[in-house]
């Protein structure tokens, strides 16, 4: 069964996405996020990296640069460009995913790259390219949001000047209820999915898409829920960076030496 087949499938009989008590399949309430784990600086060779687990999603992001721009014709004499590559690994879904770029991953690369572009001070690095690689190791709906969350932590870890961290999460409509952070079953059999990237400090929205149908009221509620989710994720992103560069106990020097030794 392919992804497309699943999308067009009707709800299996007897499957209730939300039970009488208002609990979802995985036991969450409508306004609850999946458990999230964020770690910064997980890859040695990359300039910056991050690992995000969002429920069953497992995502690695690596950032290189700002470095010389290849291919050369893409370089901009006034600013850096962001080249984002979102990639789902072949073993990330139940059926083997055919490796390589497809329509969906090209789209996600574009929107995630554009969100990052807004946040990074590109004009400080003319003629260069900031290469962002997002690898989805395991997918369970909401990978573009988790990918952007990871990528933004990785960019900060790479020491690239940026306006703010970008948290992202989705909201949607499942069984006539507006819920936060859809999982795979809810995404497949639900009515709508609204991924959102939002900077809590400024209130700016950097990514907003909608798949399915919502009324104006439902849409407003979805945005409200997703903003709340983003605020929570933002805190976790900050914690991850603080853990990575823990200052307590004067171990700053030590980790600096370790970083220097990585090259050898």
């Amino acid at each position, binding site marked *: 069964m392919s992804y497309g087949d699943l999308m067009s499938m009707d709800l299996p009989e007897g499957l209730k996405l939300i039970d009488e008590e208002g609990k979802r399949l995985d036991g969450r309430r409508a306004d609850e996020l999946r458990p999230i784990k964020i770690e910064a600086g997980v890859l040695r060779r990359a300039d910056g990296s991050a690992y995000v687990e969002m429920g069953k999603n497992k995502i690695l992001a690596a950032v290189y640069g700002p470095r010389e721009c290849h291919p050369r014709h893409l370089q901009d004499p006034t600013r850096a460009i962001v080249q984002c590559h979102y990639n789902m690994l072949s073993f990330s879904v139940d059926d083997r995913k055919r490796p390589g770029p497809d329509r969906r991953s090209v789209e996600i690369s574009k929107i995630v790259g554009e969100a990052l572009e807004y946040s990074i001070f590109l004009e400080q*690095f003319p003629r260069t390219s900031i290469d962002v690689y997002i690898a989805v190791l395991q997918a369970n709906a909401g990978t573009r949001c988790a990918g952007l969350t990871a990528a933004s932590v990785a960019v900060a870890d790479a020491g690239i000047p*940026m306006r703010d961290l970008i948290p992202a999460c989705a909201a949607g409509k499942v069984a006539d209820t507006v819920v936060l952070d859809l999982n795979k079953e809810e995404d497949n059999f639900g009515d709508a999915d609204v991924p959102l990237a939002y900077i809590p400090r400024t209130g700016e929205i950097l990514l907003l898409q909608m798949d399915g149908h919502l009324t104006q009221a439902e849409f407003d509620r979805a945005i409200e829920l997703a903003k709340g989710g983003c605020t929570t994720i933002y805190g976790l992103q900050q914690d991850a960076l*603080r853990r990575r560069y823990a200052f307590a106990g004067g171990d700053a020097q030590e980790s600096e030496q370790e970083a220097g030794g990585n090259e050898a």
Partner: protein
Amino acid sequence: MEEKFVIPGEIVATAEEFVPGKGTYESDGKIVASEAGKLTLDVKSHTASVKPRNPVTEPKKKDKVLASITDVRSSMAICDILFIEGAARQITGDAEATLHVSSISSQYVETVGSAVRVGDVIRAEVTQSQPSTQLTTVSAHLGVVLAHCSRCKSVLQLKDKSLFCSECERYEKRKIADDYGAVSVS
């Protein structure tokens, strides 16, 4: 002076009190960190700046770099900077640099080709980073650290203070660094 660890997007001061320095920017009357690192609020100059923990590496004056020669012209050699010695990460921005014939050696160099050849790896010092990167190899520790025979491309060995190709059994001239052959280029 006050020091604190900050993260991009964190408000560190107000614009009435401080001027945004390195690693910070101003937004809506607030000074906001743009890099993850140690915050310094300098009350003397009223500057808020962040010293990043993992800074991007741009070649600066006096940096020692390893570079490979990509082109030899009549008065200069064009190089690609491979990395800055002692830096943990690859360089940021344009890696292209030039080595002028006058800054190759303390002795007279008749042609650039008699001191460096295309494909050689040199250790050089940065003498200028803006608007273009300029290098010098005037010093015993600076110069070619790896060279290939111009005829057979096998690696040249140091012999009698000169470079020798054991395949072709001939000597080649270069401006050699004092530790030729002992440098890991990767």
